[in-house]
């Protein structure tokens, strides 16, 4: 297959799927925090003279919080539907992000940043209900 066809052909037709443009735009907005949050945390902590070991610790705490809560959130998303889980989740995420920001800005004790990071990591709202399509996409839809 030619390079051009391999890269572009199937995806070029995909936006014609009804509703795809809106969902794609929403997907980008929902997904951006995932691609932004660790870098944004590192930058603000670096500017406030936290050490790189502290920065690593804060990011690691968020990831551990994520790992702990991921299965529970997926199960809740499956049981109650993503909509009922997403709203409380994003409220917690936003509150924890603002708390982390304030803690870093005003050079609060590092333990405060750990707590905020754990909450924020656990409440990241990018993967709710991912268990549903993986199972159904491969079995139920076929």
């Amino acid at each position, binding site marked *: 297959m030619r*390079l051009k066809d391999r*890269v572009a052909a199937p*995806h070029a*037709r*995909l936006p*014609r*799927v*009804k*509703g795809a443009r809106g*969902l*794609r735009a*929403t*997907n*980008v*907005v*929902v*997904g*951006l925090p*995932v*691609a*932004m949050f*660790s*870098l*944004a945390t590192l*930058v603000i902590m*670096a*500017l406030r003279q936290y*050490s790189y070991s502290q920065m*690593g*610790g804060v*990011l*690691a705490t968020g990831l551990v919080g*994520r*790992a702990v809560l*991921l299965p529970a959130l*997926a199960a809740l998303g*499956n*049981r109650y*539907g*993503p*909509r009922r889980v*997403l709203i409380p989740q*994003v409220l917690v*995420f936003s509150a924890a*992000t*603002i708390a982390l*920001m304030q803690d870093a*800005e005003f050079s609060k004790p590092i333990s405060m940043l750990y707590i905020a990071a754990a909450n924020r990591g656990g409440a990241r709202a*990018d*993967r709710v*209900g*991912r268990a549903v*399509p*993986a*199972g*159904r996409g*491969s*079995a139920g*839809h*076929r």
Partner: protein
Amino acid sequence: MRTAWAALCRPGAAQPGIDDPARRAVALEWSSIADIAVLGPLLTMLLVDTGHPRGGLIGTAAFAFFGVIGLALQPSVARAGEAGRDTGATGHAPRTAGLIALALIASLSAAAVAAVEISTVAAVDRYGHHALSGLFLAFAAIGCFAGGLWNGWPKMPAGRRLVVALLLVVIATALPWLAPGLWLLAVSLFLLGVFARPAVTSGYSILQDLIQPVRLSGALSRYGCCVCLGAAAGVAAAGALIGQDGTSGPADGYLTAAGFALMAALVCLASLRSLGKPGRHAQTGRPGSAPELAGEATTRGL
């Protein structure tokens, strides 16, 4: 998001493009993930550089809030919720040698990627351009795009492709340690993206081959946990090694990343036999779906 895409691409609707609804859903999702991986670091850089250091985190919270509200209002999300309640149990992943090895490989690979991220911020900061770290991480995301071309390499089994890709990741991460410099850093991050993408894709492809479809959900969830825990270990280890003020240790951070990637490659090499053995009820013959299953894992830029 996959829920919403799957609901949008449910069978029965007249839709152009890829025929299989599941593949169409993941292809659509992947197309937006590619946007995110490049836009995220660049936008962070822009917000921090032109506004206030807090701009990146404020942007994160704002995008999350408005994005999720917008997502919740999408009709496809409502349909996904209704359909999700019908399906019941998702099944638990069994513990086989192949799956345990794959979990270990995923953790170590994620550790390498996370170590690269914090090391890049430290390295760019050392050269006095802290606001440019987003640009450098975007190079890795662009590399991921290019790495996607490797997905369909037909003449190499997924296990072997994973080993080769991981060894190339070792080389890419070791470059900034061997020869520090901003230009070389950009090149090595691009190469890292190129090689990391097929590694992630191969991992998910192997997972899909090892597991029954009904248990794939549980396995993916556990796989995601392993990735998070590995990334936590990687970022903590690299952060500790980089040092108190970040002036002496970015190279050590890259060395840590290369070490994690090398361990992943060695584990993969040692377990090639078990990774290549499909599960008794494993799903086979669905080419093209595994690359997109890997989509979320690459959102972080790699």
